C-alpha cells in the first residue's frame, strides 16, 4: 500500500532529523582532530560511521513498526535508531560517552541499546541477523505481538550468518524481515567484486521466501515493499528479504579518503541526495506545503539541538564505573 500524506511527512521528518543529527555529529567529531587527524581526540573519539544517504531504508521500513517490534541494526545505526524511535538525547549522550547515555558510555555509537523501543545494534558485519531470528522466535513461542527486523548491508549477505539465519527463519516460519541496505561498497571493496549475484534479492529463493529488490533509494517504494513483507510476517506467513538500493554519501567511516570511488561518483550521488529528491517530490505532489516544510525543518533543528546540548552538558561517569554491569 502507498503511504498516506501523513506517513510521507513522518518519513520525511525522520530523514531530516537523522541527516541533521549526523551533520552535527560530523562537525563535532572533527573538533580536536584537526589539523592532525587522531581518532582518539575530541569530544567524540573512536570510529564514526555516518549513514547519510541511506535514510530512506530506515524510514521506509520503520514507518510500519511499533514500539514492541524488534530492530537489530548495524555499525552504521543512527538513521535506523532515529526511525525506530530511540531516545535522541540519550543516544547523543552515548555517542559522547556520557553517564546519561543509553548505557552510560559503555557502548558508544556502534552499541546502542534502547530496550524501551526494542532497538539494538552491533559492530560486526552480519551480527544482527541471528538475534533478530531469536527475537522473532520469542514472539512466536510466547504468542506475543511483534515482528523482528534485521538491517544489514550488502556485505553481510556474504557472511555465513546471512545464509544460516535466512534458512533458520524459513524453517521455523518466523516473523522476521531481513533488510539489506545495499550501498554498493564494503569499505573500499565494490559489491561486484565481492558478490556473485547482481542482486541479493535472488538469494531469497534459496530459502523459499520472497525476495524483493527495491531500486531508487526512494522512501515511498521502500515503504510499499516493506509494508508487504511486514504484513506477511504479522500474519504468520514467515520471513522475507528486502534488497534495497541505497547510497552512502560519506566514506565508510570519518577519515576515509574515499580514493576508491570512481571519478565523479560522489558528485553524482550528491545530486541524487534522497532527501532533496523526496522534498522536491512532496512539494510537487502537494503532500507537503512550504510552511509544513519549514515547520519540519525547525522541528528537526530543535530536536537535534536539544539532544546535542543534553549530551554536551552531561557528565562523564566515574572511570571505575567501567567495572559495573559485566553481569546481570
Amino acid at each position, binding site marked *: 500500500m502507498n503511504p498516506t500524506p501523513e506517513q510521507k511527512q513522518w518519513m520525511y521528518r525522520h530523514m531530516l532529523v537523522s541527516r541533521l543529527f549526523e551533520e552535527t555529529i560530523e562537525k563535532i567529531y572533527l573538533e580536536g582532530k584537526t589539523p592532525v587527524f587522531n581518532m582518539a581526540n575530541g569530544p567524540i573519539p573512536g570510529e564514526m560511521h555516518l549513514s547519510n544517504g541511506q535514510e530512506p531504508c530506515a524510514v521506509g521500513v520503520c514507518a510500519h513498526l511499533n514500539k514492541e517490534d524488534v530492530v537489530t541494526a548495524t555499525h552504521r545505526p543512527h538513521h535506523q535508531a532515529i526511525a525506530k524511535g530511540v531516545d535522541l538525547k540519550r543516544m547523543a549522550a552515548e555517542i559522547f560517552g556520557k553517564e546519561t547515555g*543509553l548505557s552510560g558510555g559503555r557502548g558508544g555509537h556502534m552499541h546502542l541499546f534502547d530496550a524501551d523501543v526494542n532497538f539494538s545494534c*552491533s559492530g560486526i558485519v552480519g551480527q544482527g541477523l*541471528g*538475534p533478530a531470528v*531469536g527475537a522473532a522466535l520469542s514472539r512466536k513461542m510466547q504468542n506475543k505481538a511483534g515482528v523482528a527486523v534485521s538491517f544489514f548491508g550488502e556485505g553481510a549477505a556474504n557472511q555465513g550468518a546471512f545464509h*544460516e539465519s535466512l534458512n533458520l527463519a524459513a524453517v521455523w516460519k518466523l516473523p522476521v524481515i531481513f533488510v539489506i541496505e545495499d550501498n554498493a561498497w564494503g569499505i573500499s571493496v565494490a559489491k561486484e567484486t565481492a558478490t556473485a549475484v547482481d542482486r541479493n534479492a535472488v538469494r531469497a529463493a534459496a530459502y523459499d521466501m520472497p525476495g524483493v529488490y527495491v531500486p531508487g533509494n526512494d522512501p515511498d517504494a521502500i515503504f510499499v515493499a516493506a509494508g508487504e513483507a511486514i504484513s506477511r510476517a504479522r500474519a504468520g506467513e514467515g520471513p522475507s528479504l528486502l534488497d534495497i538500493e541505497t547510497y552512502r554519501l560519506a566514506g565508510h567511516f570519518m577519515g576515509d579518503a574515499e580514493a576508491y570511488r570512481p571519478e565523479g561518483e560522489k558528485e553524482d550521488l550528491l545530486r541524487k541526495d534522497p532527501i532533496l529528491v523526496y522534498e522536491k517530490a512532496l512539494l510537487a505532489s502537494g503532500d507537503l506545503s512550504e510552511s509544513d516544510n519549514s515547520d519540519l525543518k525547525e522541528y528537526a533543528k530543535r530536536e537535534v539541538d536539544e539532544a546535542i546540548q543534553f549530551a554536551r552538558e552531561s557528565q562523564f561517569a566515574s572511570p571505575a564505573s567501567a567495572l559495573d554491569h559485566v553481569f*546481570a
Partner: protein
Amino acid sequence: MPTKDRKLTVARAMAEAMSQEMRLDERVFVMGEDVGPLGGVFGNTRGLFEEFGAERVRDTPISETAFMGAAVGAAADGMRPIVELMFVDFFGVCFDAIYNLMAKNTYFSGGNVNVPAVIMTSTGGGYSDGGQHSQCLYGTFAHLPGMKVVVPSNAFDAKGMMTAAIRDDSPVIYMFHKGLQGMGWLGTEAGATVNVPEEEYTVNIGKAATVSEGEDVTIVSLGMGVHHSLRAAALLYEQGVSADVIDLRTLVPLDRDHIFNSVKKTGRLVVVDEDYQSYGVSGEIIASVVERDISILRAPPQRVAYPDIPIPFAHHMEQWALPNAEKIVRACLRATSN
C-alpha cells in the same frame, strides 16, 4: 520423599533439572542439534521432547552461528533458552554470537538488556575422537568477561548447577565432560554417578567444594580431573601424604578464597586441568594464590595439564598426554619433598 538411594548419571541429572525448570517456567526452552527425539548425542535431553514437544525442544539445522545468535535475541526478548553446542570444539563456527553478543550485551546496554541463556556443551577426550572432538577449552571461555562458566564433576552438582544456570539472569556456559555423562559407549567415570534428590534444588554458581580433606598438599581440579585427583589422593594416603582435593565447580566467578584458604593450610599446590597448559586455568589458579600471598607456599606450585599440542588420535599418544592419577601423585610428591 527420601531420595537417598537414587543414583543418576550426569546426563539424566541434567535432563531432570531442565524438565523441572521447564514445568515451572514457560520461558525455558531447549534448542540445538539432535536435542529432540534423539535426546541429545550425550543423552542430556532424553525425555524432554516426549514431555514438552517440538515447540519447546527444538532440533536445529547445523547452523550454530544462527542458533547461537537466535539464543541471544530470544533471551533479550524475555525467553530463557538452553542451547546445546554439541562439542565445545565447534565453538569456532559460532563464537562471535557467544563472546561478542551473549557475553557483552548486558555491559554494552548498561544493564538494560540481559541475556539469560545457558549454553551446554560437551568437553574432554580420552576415547580417540581426535583433536576436533576432544578439547576442554575451559580457559578459552573463562578468559572472556561476561559469561559465567560452570564445570560439574558429578550428577548432584550437574542437576543443581543446571537449575542455577537456568535461573541466572547472566549467560552461563555449562561444560559437561563426556567421560562423566554415564553414556555406556563413552566409558564412564563411576564416581560421577551419585545420589540425586528428586526435588529441584540449586548448587550455587561461584562456590568451590572440598571433596577430600587433607593437610599436606592442595589439589585443585575440575570436571574429570576431580576423579583423577581423588584416586591420586587415595594413593598418596598410602604413602603418608594427605591431600585436600578441591573441585572448582565454577570457573567464573572463581572461588579464589576457597583455594587460598586450603593452600594456606597445606602450603603446597598442585593444579590438575585437562585443558591446554599455557595461558589457561592452571596458571590462573596459581596466580590467584601467589599474587595474594606468596609466603604461604612451601614449595613451587605444580601443574598437571594437557601439553600445548593438538590432541592426537592414537590411543597410546592421547593417553600419554592426558592427566591421570599417577601424574598427579608424582606432582604431589615433588611438592611435598621440599
